[in-house]
C-alpha cells in the first residue's frame, strides 16, 4: 500500500509539474493565456495551498489570512526599495516577516478553538487592515499604497536608470519580460514572472505533499479529528497547530511577496476580510484537505473573476442577439446583474452552492463521479460473470475509506 502511495505521489508530482509548466499552452484557447492572469493563478495557488495546510489538516478556520498576504507584500516591497531590485532578498525577507507575524497572531488566536478562533483571526486581520490605513501610514503609505520610487536608496544595486523606474527582476531577468510564440493561430505568451511563480508553486506544492505524508501531517489530521483525544494520547497539540499556522502564514507571505514582484504595488485592501474570504472560498471550492483542490479552486476563481468581470452588457447582448427582441431583453436583464461588475454576486452564489451541496469541493465531486462510473462498470461486469470480486487485503487500502478520509488520502 505504502509503496503504491509513493509511486502515485510521484506520478501526481510529475503531472502537476507538467500541467503548471504548460499553463500558457493550456490557457491560451480559454482566453486566459496572458501573463498577468497566469501569474495570479500560480500565486493564489500558493496562497491556497498554504491555507489548506492549516484549515485542511487541522480544521482551524482562519478568517484573517489576508493579513499575512498583506504583510508579505509590504515587506517585499520595502526590500525592493531599500536593498535591491532583485526579487530573491525581497521574497526571503517577506517569508520571514510574515512567519514572525503569524507566530505572534497564532500564539494568541490558537488559545481558543472553533468559532472563537475564526473571530479572533478575523479581528486581527481587520486590526492590521485598519493599522495599515491609519497609524502605520509611514510604512504602508496609507490609502495610496506603497510603490517603487525613483528616490529609493536600493543599497546594493542603485545604478541610475535614467529617470526610469526599475522593474523587479531575478538576476537580470525582468518579471515583465514575455516571449510571444505563435502557435496554431494563437499567441502563446511565455512570461518570466509567470515561470518564476510557477516554479515556486511547484516547489510549494511538493512541500505541502511532504507535509501531508509526514507524521506531522498525520498528527495535524488527528487534531482535526479529535483534539482532546490527541492530548490524552501524549501529544501537546498546541505547538503542532501553531507550527501549521506559521507555515501557512509563511505561504501567504510568500504569495504576497510574489504579487509585489509581479506588480510592485502594495495596498491595504489586500488585507481586507474579503481577501481572507476569497482564499477560504478557493480552498473550499477545490476541496478542503485535498492536495490538488486548493490550486484548482484558486485557478477557477481567478479565471472566472477575470472572465466574468470583463463581460459587459454589450457582450451579453451579443450572446442573445439571435433571439427575438423581447426574449433577448429579458435574458439580458436576468443575466447581466451576475456578470461584469456584478460578478461578485455569482461568486457568492457559487460559494453558497458549493458549501450546501458539495462540502468536499470539486475533488469530492470528481471522486463521486468516478465512483459512479466504477460502480456502473462493475455492475456490468458482475452481471456478465458473477464472481466474488472482493478486493484483496492490500487493495482495500486507499480505495475503501469513508468520504472523510478520501479527502486526505487522494490527490
Amino acid at each position, binding site marked *: 500500500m505504502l509503496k503504491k502511495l509513493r509511486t502515485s505521489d510521484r506520478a501526481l508530482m510529475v503531472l502537476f509539474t507538467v500541467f503548471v509548466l504548460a499553463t500558457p499552452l493550456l490557457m491560451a484557447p480559454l482566453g486566459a493565456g496572458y501573463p498577468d492572469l497566469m501569474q495570479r493563478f500560480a500565486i493564489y495557488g500558493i496562497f491556497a495551498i498554504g491555507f489548506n495546510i492549516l484549515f485542511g489538516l487541522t480544521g482551524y478556520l482562519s478568517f484573517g489570512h489576508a493579513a499575512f498576504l498583506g504583510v508579505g507584500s509590504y515587506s517585499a516591497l520595502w526590500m525592493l526599495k531599500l536593498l535591491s531590485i532583485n526579487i530573491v532578498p525581497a521574497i526571503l525577507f517577506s517569508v520571514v516577516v510574515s512567519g514572525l507575524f503569524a507566530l505572534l497572531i497564532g500564539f494568541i488566536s490558537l488559545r481558543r478553538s472553533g468559532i472563537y478562533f475564526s473571530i479572533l483571526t478575523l479581528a486581527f486581520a481587520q486590526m492590521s487592515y485598519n493599522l495599515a490605513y491609519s497609524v502605520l501610514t509611514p510604512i504602508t503609505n496609507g490609502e495610496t499604497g506603497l510603490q517603487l520610487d525613483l528616490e529609493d536608496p536600493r543599497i546594493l544595486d542603485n545604478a541610475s536608470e535614467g529617470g526610469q523606474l526599475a522593474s523587479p527582476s531575478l538576476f537580470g531577468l525582468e518579471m515583465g519580460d514575455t516571449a510571444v510564440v505563435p502557435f496554431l493561430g494563437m499567441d502563446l505568451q511565455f512570461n518570466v514572472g509567470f515561470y518564476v511563480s510557477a516554479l515556486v508553486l511547484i516547489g510549494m506544492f511538493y512541500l505541502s505533499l511532504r507535509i501531508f505524508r509526514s*507524521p506531522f501531517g498525520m498528527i495535524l489530521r488527528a487534531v482535526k479529528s*479529535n483534539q482532546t483525544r490527541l*492530548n*490524552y494520547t501524549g501529544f501537546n497539540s498546541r505547538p503542532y497547530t501553531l507550527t501549521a499556522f506559521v507555515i501557512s502564514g509563511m505561504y501567504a507571505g510568500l504569495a504576497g511577496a510574489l504579487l509585489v514582484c509581479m506588480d510592485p504595488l502594495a495596498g491595504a485592501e489586500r488585507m481586507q476580510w474579503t481577501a481572507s474570504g476569497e482564499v477560504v472560498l478557493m480552498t473550499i471550492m477545490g476541496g478542503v484537505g485535498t492536495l490538488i483542490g486548493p490550486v484548482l479552486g484558486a485557478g477557477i476563481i481567478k479565471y472566472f473573476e477575470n472572465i466574468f468581470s470583463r463581460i459587459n452588457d454589450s457582450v451579453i447582448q451579443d450572446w442573445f442577439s439571435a433571439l427575438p427582441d423581447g426574449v433577448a431583453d429579458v435574458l439580458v436583464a436576468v443575466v447581466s446583474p451576475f456578470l461584469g461588475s456584478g460578478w461578485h454576486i455569482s461568486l457568492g452564489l457559487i460559494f453558497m452552492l458549493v458549501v450546501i451541496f458539495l462540502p468536499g469541493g470539486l475533488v469530492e465531486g470528481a471522486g463521486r463521479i468516478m465512483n459512479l462510473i466504477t460502480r456502473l462498470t462493475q455492475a456490468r461486469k458482475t452481471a456478465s460473470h458473477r464472481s466474488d470480486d472482493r478486493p484483496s487485503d492490500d487493495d482495500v487500502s486507499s480505495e*475503501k475509506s*469513508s468520504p472523510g478520509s478520501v479527502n486526505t488520502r487522494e490527490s
Partner: protein
Amino acid sequence: MGILEVKGVNKRFGGLLALDDVNLSVQQNTVHAIIGPNGAGKSTLLNCFIGKLVPDSGTVDFNNSSLLGLEPYQINQAGISRVFQTPEVFSELSILENVMIPAFAHRDGAFHLSPFKSLAKETTIREQAEKILQDVGLIDERHHTASAMSRGNKRRLEMAMCLVQKPKLLLLDEPTAGMARADTNNTIDLLKTINEAHEITFVVIEHDMHVVFSLADRISVLSQGHVIVEDHPSNIKGHPKVQEAYLGTTETQ
C-alpha cells in the same frame, strides 16, 4: 511502595465533599479495581489522576513524582494511558493510523517537529502498530477508517492505542459500559490476556461486579467520597461495610 500512591485527597464542589480523605495504594502489575455506588466519587477520583481536576488537598504520586497540576499529555508521557468510558478514537483516520499516532507520541515525546519526514519510511512504528493490531484482532481491517467500527471494536482499537505506548499504568473507566454480555466477556478476556502478556498495572473503575470479580487482584470500595474497604476480592464479597454501602444500613446485623 505502590506505583500509584494517593494520600489524603480531598475535593469539594460547593457544599458537596466529593472526595473525603481518600487513600489508595496501587501495587505494580496488579489489577486494582475501584468500585462503589453511584455518586461515590469514582469519576472525581479518576479525574484527579488524569489532570482534569486538581484536588483541594492531598497528593497523587506516580512512580514517586506528583501528577498534580500536570496537563493530560504530560500525564500520558509519564506512562499513564487511559481508556475512555465511551470509546474515543480518531474517526476520520484509518485504524492503523489511530495506533501509529500514540506510537509516535511514545517514541518522539509530546512535541517533535518532522514535517518533511515520510510517513511511509516509518517502518518500525508501523510494524509496532501492526503487531498490536494483530494482538487485539483488528489487523485485517487496519486500512478502514475508524468511524464505521462497532463499539466493541472501537474498545479494542482504544486498547491497542494504549498498549502500543507500553504504559506503566492503564486507567480503565468503565471499560464495558453499555456493552452486551458477549462483548463484555470478550473485553474481559482481552484485558486478561493483556495483563498477562504485558507488564502493565491496571486501575479499573467499574460498575459491573461480574467484570470486577473476574479481573481484579485488589478492590477499593468507595462510598460517599471515602474509601471504606480495600482488600482482596474474596474478602470484599461478603464484607458488611460493602453491603451497607450498596444496600443501605438495614442489611447489617
